[in-house]
């Protein structure tokens, strides 16, 4: 199936930015897209697959191990010896609602067990998503036991399966991407906290923009292949920017003054814990790298603050203003530029 190209998505700048940021710096810790129906949340996230730069993997490794990594390899790849490598497109794995635990973590290969009486581990979705993205649509409808499992793996970066006397341990580091409609139910605070960036996706009010959305969608539906072809150049350009920004990440400096501002902003908003500050700075660095700058400016901070902090605010019974507005307000007080 041909996916709708990421570059052809009209509007939704905040969501697109957040996804690109997460692609540049995976340690930001994932993206949560909440908001109105029909705004193309899923389209944007699924389209990411075509945009991500290819990754090098150990040839034949079923866990997408990175060649030459010192640690965090699967059992087979940790053994000494040289291995051939190959390139593959970075995975964007869909975790469907109704998935059972064994398919998420991986389990014994049924075919082998039945046919040959062999115990062999069959990797699950977590293994497939290693070094890529794991996407959960309607994340607020996900079963509790799967949420627990994901929280555990996302925190440790490792998946451990014990079954039938077989013990498998493999790396599972992925960028968690969730989308959902807040009206369908709240997200557990622990899961909410795991997402680095949280984007409020709104329907565009601009009639022009909405017309353009329909026009492109119509063109795509009529002839998907031609449409993707038309956007190939824009996609390639965007991909090149991501690759470049990834390379530049290491060189981006955070001046002391900006660091102080970031801390002050978090304090002002009562964003609990260190995660808010860390995410804010990482996202700001990714932003700077994407813009081709070598220092993080207050402008970069400003552009990522709302998505990095809006889901971490302490609840204030006296203030029922929208979280984004509260972040904006704090920014005008703290940031001068």
């Amino acid at each position, binding site marked *: 199936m041909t996916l709708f190209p990421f570059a052809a998505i009209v509007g939704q700048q905040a969501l697109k930015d957040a996804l690109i940021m997460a692609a540049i710096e995976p340690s930001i810790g994932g993206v949560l897209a909440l908001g109105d129906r029909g705004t193309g949340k899923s389209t944007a996230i699924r389209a990411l697959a075509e945009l991500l730069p290819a990754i090098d993997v150990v040839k034949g490794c079923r866990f997408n191990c990175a060649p030459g990594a010192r640690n965090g390899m699967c059992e087979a790849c940790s053994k000494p010896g040289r291995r051939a490598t190959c390139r593959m497109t970075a995975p964007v794995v869909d975790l469907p609602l109704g998935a059972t635990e064994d398919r998420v973590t991986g389990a014994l290969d049924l075919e082998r067990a039945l046919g040959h009486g062999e115990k062999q581990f069959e990797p699950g979705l977590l293994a497939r998503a290693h070094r890529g993205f794991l996407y959960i649509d309607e994340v607020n409808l996900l079963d509790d036991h799967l949420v627990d499992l994901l929280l555990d793996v996302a925190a440790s970066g490792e998946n451990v399966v014990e079954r039938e006397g077989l013990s498998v341990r493999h790396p599972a580091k992925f960028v968690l991407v969730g989308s959902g409609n807040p009206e369908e139910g709240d997200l557990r605070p622990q899961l909410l906290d795991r997402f680095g960036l949280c984007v409020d996706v709104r329907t565009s009010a601009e009639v022009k923009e909405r017309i353009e959305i329909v026009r492109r969608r*119509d063109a795509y539906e009529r002839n998907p292949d031609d449409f993707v072809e038309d956007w190939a150049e824009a996609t390639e350009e965007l991909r090149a920017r991501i690759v470049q920004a990834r390379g530049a990440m290491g060189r981006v400096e955070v001046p002391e003054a900006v660091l102080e501002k970031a801390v002050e902003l978090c304090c002002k908003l009562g964003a609990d814990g260190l995660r808010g500050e860390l995410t804010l700075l990482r996202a700001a660095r990714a932003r700077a790298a994407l813009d081709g700058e070598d220092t993080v400016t207050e402008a970069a901070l400003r552009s990522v603050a709302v998505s990095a902090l809006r889901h971490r605010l302490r609840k204030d019974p006296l203030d029922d203003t929208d979280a984004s507005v509260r972040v904006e307000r704090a920014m005008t007080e703290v940031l001068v530029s």
Partner: protein
Amino acid sequence: MISAGAPVPEKGLCRESLAALQAEMVRRADYMLALAALMPSRLGGVLVEAASPDASAHLTQQLSGWMTGGGRAVRLPPGISDDALLGGLDLAATLSVGRPVIQPGLLSAADGRCLVIPMAERLPRQTAAQISRALDCSIVMTEREGVSCSTPSTFAALLLSDPADASEAVPEILNARIAFRLPGAFLPAQWAPLFSAKDICEARARAPGVDLPDPFIEAMAVACETLGIGDPRVLAFACASMRGLAALSGEPCVQEAHAELAASLVLGARAAPQMEMDQPPQPPPDEAKGQDKGRDGQSVDDLAELVVAAARFSAQIDAAARGKKVRKRMKGEVASGKSGEMVDSWQRGSRIDARAGDPRRQGRLDLIATLRAAAPWQKIRPRREGGAPIAIRAADFRLKRFRHRSEAVVIFAVDASGSTAMNRLAEAKGAVEFLLGGCYARRESVAVLAFRRQSAEVLLPPTRSLTRVKRSLAGLPGGGGTPLAAGISAAQVMSEQELRRRRSPYIVFLSDGQANVGLDGAGGREGGGADASRMARRLKGAHLPILFLDTSRRPNADARRLSDEMGAVYRPLPFADGKSVSDTVRQTLLS
């Protein structure tokens, strides 16, 4: 050949003539089904409300006949399990063949066919989400119990719904993906369709080649704006419908008539109600105009106006066809809010499916499911001499999962200020005892909050134990100012906690509504009253069932206003005792 803009029988409608209305609804049904069959992946399907069983059967048959896969419709049984919906392992075949055999789920079986969803208003959200996903991607992904596959599936959904009242609606997640709504009360049991299967087949081939000029898209976008339709999907539905209608009528390019009809089919049911009712409905201009080829000079605005008129007119027909079917909420009846929601449990309720789990820690073992889980692995499990014929491991254990209505928690928020504090607390205590005494079978919990002086405190956390109630509510202190705002806020905090624990909170206020302490603890009628209103309005946003018992000597306006602000049911109860409080709570909230 096929006329897209058949004249609307507006005269008959004004007299509410049944025949005219019936003819119009039949015409709409035909167009909706035809479009859904033409582009199922773009339009989702049709939601039919309150149709008779015969009419539903006819609609099903007609839509099935027009789909590419032909054949029979696939019917979604109520309470379908994930295995049956998404597919799973065919155990018998797997064991006999010696390799995994996948039993396709209902969603994959529906490929190219019509998926009938009866009682759509009772569809669980999970199931609705899975159907929506299949509609979105035209792919069914199965990641279950040793099965990992994705199969393409394109189907048109026919949702049959018969809502008893406004609170029963098709889950929004699915509703938003279905282009058409058809009020079915006036549909006859059978009729001769406008199109033949061949017409649909030809139109399907033509549809991608139809030209859809930009002004039509623009006009439709402007019309959505005017009608207050925010969901961008609706605009996409309308545009796809225009293309489909042009293809049905054999035109190479979308015409005005197609735009009008598309608007009346898609936008009408979603248009925000119009305020001015004295103005007679403007019927859309007749067909002759629609065929006018000199469209180039016409502005987008004119076209938009035409489209809006068509949608508004259609909304009125819809309203007539819907009749007074939807029951208005009766006075004094409480909004059900989040209460009574179905929750999953390991203990009780109606059986839904089995899940992996540890029977020593929770739940009841599902023996059959456990044996099924163990069966494929027998070959690799060493069997001891004289041991059990089947080797079962802890990982095979499957527990029964149930679904039941969530448990009720009645939260009493009691005004313990002033001189009458002791009376009110005694009433609350009595009510709590009565409720608990009579409610063992109903499994309700009760909690008590009291507010006095500067703040609110929890006197009794949610409990079902009568002994505990007697102990903790004995010898309560009263007196001081009335921090009503703090009391309202505390009630809301506790309700939210209970919601997170999957229980349904009900709040009962016992107060005279005379606040004189603000949230910050400062005294003063004005500040106290303002804070109380603010908290009351915030509480309203939580959509909880609330009962406000006015305990003042004679009903007073302040209490009434506060009760309205929080969306509560108001009852004056000047000479309350435990029994009457408990009875009122039963009658208004828990019935």
